[in-house]
Structures are given as C-alpha cells and as structure tokens.
C-alpha cells in the first residue's frame, strides 16, 4: 500500500499540498477570461482526481528503483516520460469529462468549450505534476529504506549482544572444569570433607555463572560472589601458590555493570599470572567508590621473563568493548604491565537499581 494512504495525517497534508496547485490552476483560468465559478468548479475536483491519479507514480518507482550510478538511467527516463505523457493525457481527458458533466449546470454551460482550448495546457501541467510525483515517490522510498536499514541495524545489534552473552555463558573454561574435577578426585581419597566442600564450591560457581548469563546487568556484589566462588576453587588447586587479597568497599557492591565483566579478569589473573609462576603470588581484587564512580581493579604478578603481550587479548578487548558499550565516555578501561605486575582497571559510574 502507498505510504501516503497508510495514515490519515499524511494523506491530509498531501491533499493540502494540492490546494496551491488548484489555486494556480484557477488563477491561470481566470487570466483566460473564465468566471470564478468556472475556474473553481473545474480546478478543485480536477486536482482532487489528480492527487489520487498521480499517486500511481509510487508503483512505477518501486518497480524501477534508483541504482548507484547512471546505469539504466536512460531506460528509467523513458519509462517516466511515457508514464508522464499517459497520465498527463488521462488527466486532461478527465478534465474534459468533468467539464461535460458540469455543463449540465446552467452557470457552467460554457465550460466544455473553454476546457477544449485549455487541454494542451492541462496536459502539460499534468506531465509536470506527474514527474513531481515521481520525485516525491523516490524521496519516500529512500526514507522508507533508511528507516528499514536503521531498524535492521538495531535488530542486528540486539542479536549480536544476545549471541555475545550466549558465547560468554558457553565460555566456561573447560581446562578449569577438568582440573577442578581432578582435584576433587584426589581429595575423595585423602580428605573427603574437603572433597565435599569443593563439590559444593564448584556447583555454586556453575549455578551462579549460569544464572548470571541470563541477564544483561548485574550488581558488582553478585559479580564478586561469582569471583569468590571461582577463586575459592582455584585456591584449593593452587594451594599456597595462590594468596587472595580482597579490598572491597561495601558502597561499591550495589553498582550495576554488564554481566560477567569481572570474571574474565580474575580468570586471566590465574591463567596468565599465578599459574605461570612456580612460587605463585598475591591476587588482589580492589573495589572503591570515588566521586560517584566505581574503581574496580584486579592485580596479579606475572612471569617477568615472558615477553609482555602485544595489545589486549580477546578477553580483555571484549571486557573493554562491553564496558564502553554500556557507559560510553563516562567509563574507562586500562590494562597495564609494570614491575612484574599486571593490572586491569575499570572505572564506571555508580548506578544502582
């Protein structure tokens, strides 16, 4: 259906746009010696008919979309020209029929004669109006296409975010899982109580990470609980090689942030930090509130002999992207390597539920 017929307001303003054209037509008729009655009686209904007749340009334009270059422009030009001639002719034909009809009224009996002499002018005007309608149709088509592209873009972004979350959920590190199960397997013989404890920790970690994956935003407190469960398991695996330091300001805990932002950071700290060191070290998680912003950091020692990584890994890039995606310029992400320590720093506005 034509977009102008789709809404009453649009149709109204389109028809209003035809009023000046009717006035122009009437004015031209007056200069040719027509009476006001004759000019008005013909131009108003004729323009109303024209308004609907020329809407047909839409169908033509939709069938002949404008390409990128000038390719096929001649073919399209010929089609527009032919259609314009036809429509101009049809319109003047309608004018003549209208005049014949109106001539039944005594005051307008001279109309058919006057219209007959004005037919070339009406045809010309019809051609011009039809071409204007072609231009308007292309404009509407372009606008519709832009809106459609925008809608599809927004939809794609939604899908991308969804799939990203799904990917995060599936990112449960298999190496971590199997190593943890192996630790449980060892503990069942030597220390059944701790084996049971570790089963509970692992279940808690799994339940929490599955639960968080369903949501877009979580509180920092919830993210910290997940990190605690994860690190408690790693603590059993690494023993004295892993020392944990939590410096958490309770005021930061209700802060909302995108799901699973902290988890990749603590997993990195284990994988690229503690696990690469024979002696291990201290992993520090720090959360503070300053000037309405949460400052969250994860600090860990790294192997000083290994070359520093070039750029950010995929995990850290995703963290940054998601943080900036949510908070934009109000947030900051930094990863630095100094004095044998890796530090990931997140700063974002303190927003609560």
């Amino acid at each position, binding site marked *: 259906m034509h977009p102008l017929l789709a809404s009453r307001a649009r149709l109204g303003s389109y028809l209003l746009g035809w009023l000046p054209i009717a006035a122009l037509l009437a004015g031209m008729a007056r200069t040719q010696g027509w009476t006001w009655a004759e000019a008005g009686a013909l131009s108003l209904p004729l323009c109303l008919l024209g308004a609907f007749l020329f809407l047909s340009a839409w169908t033509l334009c939709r069938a002949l979309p404008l390409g990128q270059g000038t390719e096929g422009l001649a073919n399209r030009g010929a089609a527009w020209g032919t259609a314009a001639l036809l429509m101009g002719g049809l319109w003047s034909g309608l004018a003549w029929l209208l005049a014949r009809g109106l001539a039944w009224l005594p005051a307008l009996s001279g109309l058919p004669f006057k219209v007959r002499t004005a037919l070339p002018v009406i045809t010309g005007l019809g051609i011009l109006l039809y071409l204007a309608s072609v231009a308007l149709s292309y404009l509407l088509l372009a606008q519709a296409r832009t809106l459609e592209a925008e809608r599809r873009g927004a939809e794609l972004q939604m899908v991308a975010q969804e799939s990203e979350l799904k990917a995060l959920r599936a990112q449960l590190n298999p190496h971590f899982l199997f*190593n943890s*199960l192996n630790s449980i397997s*060892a503990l069942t013989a*030597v220390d059944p109580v701790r084996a049971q404890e570790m089963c509970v920790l692992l279940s808690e970690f799994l339940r929490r990470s599955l639960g968080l994956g369903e949501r877009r935003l979580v509180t920092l407190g919830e993210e910290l609980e997940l990190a605690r469960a994860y690190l408690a398991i790693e603590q059993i695996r690494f*023993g004295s090689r892993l020392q944990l330091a939590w410096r958490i300001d309770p005021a930061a805990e209700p802060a909302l942030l995108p799901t699973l932002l902290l988890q990749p950071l603590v997993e990195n700290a284990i994988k690229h930090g503690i696990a690469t060191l*024979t002696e291990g070290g201290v992993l520090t998680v720090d959360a503070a509130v300053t000037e309405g912003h949460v400052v969250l950091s994860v600090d860990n020692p790294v192997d000083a*002999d290994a070359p520093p990584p070039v750029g950010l890994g995929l995990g850290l890039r995703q963290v940054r992207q998601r943080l900036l995606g949510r908070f934009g310029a109000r947030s900051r992400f930094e990863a630095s390597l100094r004095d044998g320590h890796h530090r990931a720093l997140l700063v974002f506005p303190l927003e609560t539920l």
Partner: protein
Amino acid sequence: MKALIIDDEDLARAVVRQHLAAHPDVTVAAECANGFEALKAAAQHEPDLIFLDIQMPKLDGFEVLELLEAEGRRPAVIFVTAFDQHAMRAFEAHAVDYLLKPFARERFDAALAKTRTLLAAKEAAPVAPPAATELAATARQGRPLERIVVKDGPKITVVHLDRLDWVQAQDDYVLLRTEGRNLLKQQTLASLETQLDPGRFIRIHRSFILNLDRLVRVEQDGKEHREAVLRDGARLPVSRAGYQRLRELWEET
C-alpha cells in the same frame, strides 16, 4: 620400575601417587612441582617412567621432555593433562599414552600396562621414540611455536620468539641470536623452520632464517649478491631464492 610424578598441582600429583599404590613394582623416586625440579630429579634418579603434566609454569611438559632428550634421557612418558583431548588423541599414532584429568582407575592401570609392554619390547629391540618437538608440534595442531628452550651447559634458557633476531645453521645445530647473545641448540634449520610462523620468520638463505621484524632493508651489491640489513646494523646474506620469498611476502601485504 622408578617413576617421577611431574605436575605443578599438589592434588594432581596425589591422584597419581594414590593410583600407583596398587602397583608395588613401581616406586615413586620423586615428585616435582615444575620443570626445573623434574630435570634435576631425572639426572639424580634416572627414572624408567615419568608422569608428565603439560601446562606448567616456566617450562611446559614438552619442553621438559625436549631437555631430557638433549641430555640423552628418554624415559617412558605418560602425559597426565586436562589439555585438549583432540590434540592428545593424535599421540596414539606416536604410541605415547596419555591420561585425561580426571581419569578412572581402569584407564590408569591400562596406561601402566601399556608402558610395561613398551619398556619390555624396548629392551629386546630398542626403538627411537618420537622426538619431543614432534609431539609438541602435534599437540599445537598447526599453531606455530612461541618459544624455544635451549640447554646451555647447566643453564636452561627460554627464548621467546619475539626476542629472536635470526637463526643460522651450523651442521646439526642451529645458532640462535637473541638479545646480543648466541645460543646453540641441537636441531636442524629445516626442522626448526617448519615449526616457525611463516609470516614472522623467513628463510632468506640456505643457512639463515630471519625474524622479519628485524629487517630494515635489502641491499644489492654486484649482480646476484644481496644482503639484509638489520635494525642493529648486522648484515646477513640473502640468496636468490630467499629474495624471491621476501618479495612474495611483500607483494602479499
């Protein structure tokens, strides 16, 4: 049978020890929490069998095996790892056994039985086991090497590849140039070449592989005589085939 258990996690070593309790013919000579300890213990105890984790700090399992090889030791190996199972399956072709963490007692016993047969067969007719570098390449599944371990007398040096300037062939050895030092490693240039990232390292001459990052320009003096000028001012010969390879790489980018 003397065995070493090499794993950086206490509990992972405990599982192996616990399963071994049912096999009185196997004595645990030592437990090692990292590669360096493993090398020391191997020199001291000369084990017949090692249980070897792959992901460990400083030296990974393959590097430990490679360094043992360099010392002329080649105990039977059972890899014990949470490593990618597809990568480990490829080891079956090399008649090397592996246990995926966590493993069942039956699986453990089977691996041990296989090792006993292997050791007995080896006594009758010695067979060369697959080289550790070959196993490592299998496990990397096509990903290029990231570092090279070199035994330099009693010292072990890990050369990360972005610190490697160039490599020169010297008979059965390769000379590795890194941070102003020369290191010798027993390996052929051709076998090293296959393990390096072809986008980063290029064979510029029959005897030279160059880290592309170090190259400043190629100079031509005389008709067919070209030299690569490196960042530190060093010059290496470039053969016609080497120049051709460099040009192909430039044209690609």
